[in-house]
């Protein structure tokens, strides 16, 4: 196939990778772009195959696919990575299609499109999706991801766990499957709204958990947007707020409860704003007034307050609100029934945190009955007053201090003094003292007082009176006042005096006869009369004899008087009658006349005596009383309540008119019982009898029969009216109609029923029970929970839901609560409708009627399962803890303990410990101490004690116990102790103490101190020995400042360097420095510190400080010795050398001289011995040569050198040198820093010679810094591989630097050192050069100089180096000759 040029040009112009292939798959043509891409020569096209550019991993697939496309004869696509000219592979999509419409196909055309970026994007996307899923999965709360249309896309693990479903199942779920029906609508609406608006939403709803329980969740939803702001998906987070919800519910519940309580109390409550506006009222108020809160707001004008009270009430309230103070008023309020009732109204402000008034609480207490009772009492008092006033005797009322505070009319009139006048003014002065003494006694003893005295009358005269005063006691038996009654006994007194007089005169009249006396003959004729009699009647004795006919006795009374008198004369019996007797002035006064016969020894009547006592006053009083009683009856009749008067024996004497009207029974009923409802009679009767016996007021509620035959509830009260001695004279009874009140109570009971309905709507397990304990009512929630119907649960039916194991305990607890009549609680498990038992707290509260009797029990059961579980797990913890936990009673008895307690006591089980005396386990010597500790704990203090315990197996253990007082269930305080066996610890402590002591002693002996230094926190801890070394006070705080202050000034730079390195956290360092002590003496210290490996808080070093003063001093001495010795040795060795040379040379010299001497002698002898001389001269020459030989031999001896050409590791060689020079450097306080290159190539040469060079350079550097003060003497040794295969070594110092040009240094005999010979550097340079290297010096940027040399690296083959070395050595040898 020929391609024309046009075609290929066209292909070349295509902006794509294009190729043409033959039907067999072989590529025929590549366009320029493809060949450029692959970096191929265009001519390669023909014999080119795909394997050269398709990635090896993709090739098999590629070829197979290519094959199949060709086989199909249809267009096809495939993907593969194609190699670019630079070696990178990029993904391409290759489209192959047959060219033209020819069949059979002659050519295939392929186009490759770069899809690498797409691929990458795809893989990134995949990765990001994986990332997204893993992020979602890692969120610890349920998360759901949905598409914008709401389909579930992803759910994380917590979600699946919560719902107990797999992703596939959950995906098909609708909200209605998981969201609580009550929350569903709201949730969906919220979510829809959020989706529409594209904004985040937040909704609280209950979701069904895998176990079928709904929990509250706060569902947070937010849209995830792409860069364009389009919502990609929604993220929904479910935050568990169940606990919060429950708390809120509980709060609401408690608020509702308190509202219920407020509503159900029979006291009206109103809430006012700070300005006094009515804000709210409770139900009692609403019900009383029959008005709403809004209506009640206009209370001032609504006529709710009695017109007589309104002004006063408004003023009081306004005043209180203005002043911000509590107020109380009493007022009549008109109820819904249009009647007024008295209320006590108390207003109290409630204050806010800042003391401002937030609102007012106003309580309305119905005091109507109290008011009525008070009215009745006032009425009663008025009656009493009336009665008292009408008593025909002086009556006085005294307070407890004995002062008269009131008197009756009689007293006032008779004395002419006001009622509150001092009673003493009424007493005759002669009687006063006696009376006062008795009165004080009586007051003190609270006993009745009685005294006869002369009382001042209005006319200024005195009359004898008998005064009695008795204490009146109140309900509690305290004396509240005294009642005094004085009877006029003047007449009696007078009579007494008269008798005494007549006795004197007649000797017949007995002392005791008072009054007017008349004497009669046995026949009844007047025989004598006393003066009083005659004075009274104003008659002479003769006139008086005709008393029966002259009108002395009132004509009306006379017949009776004569009849009695005659009868007595006949019978001889004493007589007594009352008659009016005319006084001298013609006035008749009532007299009581008593007479008796005086008989002689034989009994014959000698004479009759008659005593006439003026009872006129008494008579009048009796009459007044009758009148008063009539008066009283009128008063009683006007009382609009039933009033009855009872005799002292309880018989109904009279009733008031109202009673007659109400009962419809005219006059005095035969029996009060007739008006009582038959059912109320028996109890009323027994109580009435009791009251009659004790004199206590009688009070009873009963149904009274009305005139129309109906019964209405009444409250009857009967109170005794007492005489002066406190004896009940009669009883006054009053009965109020309380029918309305009763009805109200019943209404209240009805309200209680509505409360139950309310309870039903409360989501709590609420119930009520009858006083006998049987269940009366269970709330619907309760019934639903236990899955029982109301009928099933009634009475004791609910107990079926109680866990069998808890039933007995619960029943017993319930009986106990019932018996106590007090609020109580118990715990038990309740079976839920689904069979699961959960722990509940049963709490019961009694409801009482006004008489205090329990009407009903109300209870609420609270789910305490979680708390119980916690308690159980807590108990499990206690059980498994290896420490003994125990409760010990005040008496020392173990009440409870855990398994560890049994182990501690050495017994097999806990039961073997409980009931034991814990004291018995305490080691005898610690027992007293333990008792004291135990008593202290039981007295309420916490405590800690270590003691020894000897257990049942007789093993002694050392224990420590922490104890706290705990109130036991019976209220006593017991010890809660946690006791730990610390025997092992104790032993450890002991050995630790011992070991520490060893260490301390060891450190002391070794003069070694140790320290820890936390660089980060700055905390430094020293061992005792270190304090001793520094001569610091042991235990005093150590700071860097303090240490620095001790350091020798010359070493300060050294220390600073160390601090710097430490701050950088170097792994370890070592320093020798000096410190100056207080006395000026110097110590040498050697510090070695390592960075603590496992320190978690910053950089921390552990170090040791050795006092090397002694060693230093010895070293100094030794060094001195050594240098001396070296000097001596040098001299010695030179001497030895010289001697040796001399010996060698002297031998031939000796021969030469001897021969020469002999020769001369031989020549000088006669005849001259020529032959001998010749022989000796010859020997002289020979010895001379021999001497020269010796010299030559010496020369060769000294010049001979064993040169070593070996492979040298320069780093190692340097390290050896440093080791040799270390002490010198230390002595010069040089800080050495090594910067050795790793993998440094070796060099070739003589190790010893090279080391001499290094020593020389180090010494020079050290010497150059000897005079440096105030900065660190730092020596930096560096090795490095050079760029051109050489190895470099340099020594950098911070010394004085170079004084002249560097090159001059290397001249022989040039020296800057006072002691120097000036040959070191020149020798060093010649050695380095002998090794084929270079040695040079440079001035530093900073202080000091750097000396370096470089050497060729070891080439791997010793021979060439050796060659080089040998040739170099020749040069070196020639140079040596030049020294």
């Amino acid at each position, binding site marked *: 196939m020929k391609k024309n040029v046009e075609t290929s040009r066209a292909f070349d112009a295509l902006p794509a990778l294009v190729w043409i292939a033959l039907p067999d798959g072989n590529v025929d043509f590549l366009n320029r772009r493809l060949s450029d891409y692959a970096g191929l020569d265009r001519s390669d096209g023909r014999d080119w195959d795909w394997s050269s550019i398709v990635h090896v991993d993709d090739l098999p697939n590629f070829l197979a696919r290519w094959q199949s496309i060709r086989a199909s004869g249809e267009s096809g696509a495939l993907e593969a990575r194609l190699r670019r000219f630079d070696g990178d592979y990029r993904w391409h999509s290759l489209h192959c299609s047959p060219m033209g419409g020819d069949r059979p196909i002659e050519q295939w055309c392929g186009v490759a499109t770069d899809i690498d970026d797409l691929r990458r994007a795809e893989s990134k996307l995949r990765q990001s999706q994986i990332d997204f899923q893993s992020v979602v999965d890692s969120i610890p709360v349920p998360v759901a991801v949905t598409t914008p249309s709401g389909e579930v896309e992803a759910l994380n693990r917590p979600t699946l766990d919560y719902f107990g479903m797999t992703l596939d199942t959950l995906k098909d779920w609708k909200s209605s499957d998981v969201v609580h029906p009550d929350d569903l609508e709201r949730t969906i609406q919220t979510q829809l709204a959020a989706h529409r608006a594209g904004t985040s939403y937040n909704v609280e709803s209950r979701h069904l958990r895998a176990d079928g329980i709904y929990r509250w969740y706060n569902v947070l939803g937010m849209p995830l947007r792409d860069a364009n702001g389009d919502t990609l998906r929604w993220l929904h987070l479910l935050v568990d707020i169940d606990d919060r919800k429950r708390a809120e519910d509980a709060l609401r519940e408690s608020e509702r409860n308190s509202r219920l309580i407020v509503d159900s109390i029979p006291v009206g409550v109103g809430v006012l704003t700070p300005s006094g506006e009515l804000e709210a009222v409770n139900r009692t108020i609403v019900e009383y007034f029959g008005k709403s809160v809004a209506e009640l707001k206009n209370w001032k004008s609504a006529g709710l307050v009695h017109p007589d009270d309104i002004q006063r009430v408004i003023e009081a309230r306004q005043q209180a609100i203005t002043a911000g103070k509590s107020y109380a008023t009493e007022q009549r309020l008109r109820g819904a029934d249009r009647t007024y009732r008295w209320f006590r109204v108390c207003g109290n402000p409630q204050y806010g945190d800042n003391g401002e008034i937030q609102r007012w609480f106003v309580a309305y207490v119905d005091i109507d009955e109290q008011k009525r009772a008070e009215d009745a009492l006032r009425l009663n008092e008025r009656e009493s007053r009336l009665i008292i006033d009408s008593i025909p005797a002086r009556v006085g009322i005294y307070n407890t201090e004995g002062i008269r505070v009131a008197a009756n009319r009689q007293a006032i009139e008779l004395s002419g003094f006001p009622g509150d006048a001092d009673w003493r003014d009424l007493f005759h002065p002669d009687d006063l003292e006696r009376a006062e003494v008795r009165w004080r006694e009586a007051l003190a003893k609270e006993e009745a007082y009685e005294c006869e005295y002369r009382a001042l009358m209005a006319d200024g005269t005195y009359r004898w009176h008998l005064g009695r005063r008795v204490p009146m006691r109140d309900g509690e038996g305290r004396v509240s006042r005294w009642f005094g009654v004085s009877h006029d006994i003047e007449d009696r007194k007078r009579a007494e005096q008269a008798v005494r007089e007549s006795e004197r005169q007649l000797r017949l009249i007995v002392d005791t006869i008072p009054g007017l006396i008349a004497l009669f003959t046995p026949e009844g004729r007047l025989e004598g009369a006393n003066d009083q009699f005659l004075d009274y009647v104003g008659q002479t004795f003769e006139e008086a004899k005709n008393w029966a006919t002259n009108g002395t006795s009132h004509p009306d009374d006379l017949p009776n008087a004569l009849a009695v008198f005659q009868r007595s004369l006949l019978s001889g019996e004493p007589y007594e009658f009352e008659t009016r007797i005319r006084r001298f002035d013609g006035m008749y006064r009532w007299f009581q006349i008593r007479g008796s016969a005086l008989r002689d020894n034989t009994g014959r009547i000698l004479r009759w005596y008659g005593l006439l006592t003026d009872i006129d006053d008494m008579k009048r009083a009796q009459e007044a009383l009758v009148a008063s009683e009539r008066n009283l009856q009128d008063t009683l009749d006007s009382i609009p309540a039933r009033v009855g008067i009872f005799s002292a024996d309880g018989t109904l004497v009279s009733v008031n008119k109202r009673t007659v009207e109400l009962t419809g029974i005219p006059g005095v009923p035969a029996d009060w019982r007739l008006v009582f409802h038959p059912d109320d009679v028996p109890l009323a009767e027994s109580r009435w009898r009791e009251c009659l016996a004790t004199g206590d007021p009688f009070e009873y509620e009963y149904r009274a029969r009305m005139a129309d035959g109906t019964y209405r509830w009444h409250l009857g009260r009967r109170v005794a009216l007492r005489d002066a001695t406190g004896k009940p004279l009669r009883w006054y009874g009053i009965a109020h109609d309380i029918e309305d009140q009763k009805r109200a109570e019943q209404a209240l009971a009805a309200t209680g029923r509505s409360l139950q309905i309310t309870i039903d709507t409360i989501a709590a397990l609420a119930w009520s029970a009858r006083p006998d304990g049987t269940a009366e009512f269970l709330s619907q929630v309760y019934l639903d929970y236990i899955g029982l119907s109301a009928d099933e649960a009634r009475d004791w039916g609910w107990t079926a839901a109680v866990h069998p194991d808890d039933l007995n305990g619960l029943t017993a607890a319930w009986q106990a609560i019932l018996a106590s009549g007090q609020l109580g609680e118990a715990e038990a498990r309740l079976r839920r409708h689904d069979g699961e038992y959960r722990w509940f707290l049963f709490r019961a509260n009694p409801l009482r009627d006004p008489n205090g009797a329990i009407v009903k029990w109300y209870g609420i059961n609270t789910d305490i399962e979680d708390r119980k579980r916690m308690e159980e797990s807590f108990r499990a913890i206690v059980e498994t803890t290896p420490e003994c936990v125990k409760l010990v009673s005040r008496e020392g008895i173990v009440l409870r303990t855990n398994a560890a307690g049994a182990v501690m006591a050495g017994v097999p089980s806990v039961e073997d410990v409980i009931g034991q005396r814990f004291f018995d386990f305490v080691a005898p010597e610690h027992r007293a101490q333990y008792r004291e500790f135990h008593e202290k704990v039981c007295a309420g203090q916490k405590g800690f004690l270590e003691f020894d315990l000897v257990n049942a197996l007789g093993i002694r253990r050392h224990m420590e116990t922490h104890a706290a007082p705990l109130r036991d269930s019976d209220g006593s305080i017991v010890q809660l102790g946690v006791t730990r066996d610390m025997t092992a610890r104790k032993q450890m402590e002991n050995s630790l103490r011992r070991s520490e002591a060893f260490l301390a002693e060891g450190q002391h002996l070794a003069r070694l101190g140790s320290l820890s230094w936390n660089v980060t926190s700055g905390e430094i801890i020293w061992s005792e020995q270190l304090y001793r070394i520094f001569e610091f006070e042991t235990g005093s705080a150590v700071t860097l400042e303090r240490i620095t202050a001790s350091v020798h000034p010359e070493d300060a730079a050294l220390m600073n360097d160390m601090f710097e390195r430490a701050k950088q956290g170097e792994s370890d360092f070592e320093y020798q420095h000096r410190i100056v002590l207080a006395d000026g003496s110097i110590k040498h210290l050697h510090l070695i510190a390592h960075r603590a490996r496992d320190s978690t808080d910053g950089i921390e070093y552990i170090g040791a400080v050795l006092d090397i003063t002694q060693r230093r001093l010895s070293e100094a001495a030794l060094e001195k010795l050594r240098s001396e010795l070296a000097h001596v040795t040098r001299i010695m060795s030179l001497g030895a050398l010289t*001697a040796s040379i*001399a*010996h*060698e040379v*002297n*031998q*031939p*010299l*000796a*021969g*030469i*001289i*001897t*021969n020469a*001497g*002999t020769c001369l*002698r*031989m020549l000088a*002898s006669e005849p001259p011995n020529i032959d*001998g001389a010749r*022989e*000796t001269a010859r*020997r002289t020459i*020979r*010895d001379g040569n*021999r001497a020269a030989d010796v010299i030559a031999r010496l020369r060769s001896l000294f010049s001979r050198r064993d040169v070593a050409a070996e492979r040298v590791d320069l780093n190692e060689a340097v390290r050896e040198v440093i080791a040799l020079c270390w002490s010198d450097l230390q002595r010069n306080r040089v800080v050495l820093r090594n910067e050795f290159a790793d993998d440094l190539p070796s060099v070739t040469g003589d190790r010893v010679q090279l080391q001499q060079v290094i020593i020389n350079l180090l010494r020079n550097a050290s010497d150059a810094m000897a005079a440096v003060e105030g900065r660190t003497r730092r020596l930096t040794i560096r090795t490095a591989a050079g760029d051109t295969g050489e190895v470099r070594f340099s020594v950098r110092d911070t010394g004085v630097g170079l004084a002249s040009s560097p090159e001059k240094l290397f001249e022989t005999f040039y020296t800057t050192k006072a002691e120097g010979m000036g040959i070191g550097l020149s020798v060093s340079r010649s050695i380095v050069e002998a090794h084929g290297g270079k040695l040079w010096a440079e001035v530093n940027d900073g202080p000091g100089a750097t000396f370096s040399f470089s050497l060729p690296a070891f080439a791997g083959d010793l021979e060439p180096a050796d060659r080089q070395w040998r040739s170099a050595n020749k040069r070196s040898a020639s140079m040596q000759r030049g020294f």
Partner: protein
Amino acid sequence: MKSPKPLVSVVDDDESVRESLPDLLIELGFRAEAFASAEDFLGSTHVDTTNCLILDVSMPGMTGPELHRELLRRGRDIPVVFITALKDEKVKPRLIEQGAINCLFKPFSDSALQHALGSALQSS
């Protein structure tokens, strides 16, 4: 008959001394015998006939002073003049103290030797 010339024996490990010194001694009017070591001398018959001994101090084997002590031990109090190539001034007094007549440091003059021998033979 004229009394025979005194016999001076030379003991030295140095050959040139053994060669040259006997000639000089003869020139000075002595009879001379030379031995390379102390052992050779002790093994010869001249131990009893030698009038004066010129003895090198340091020799391999028995040294000069040792030979001197050996001779004294044997009761042969032959006057000894030490010679040595090591010029150690401290050695001389010690040797004289131990009974040597003198100690000459090599190389020594013939007159010094003559003088020393004179002293030695005079003492005997």
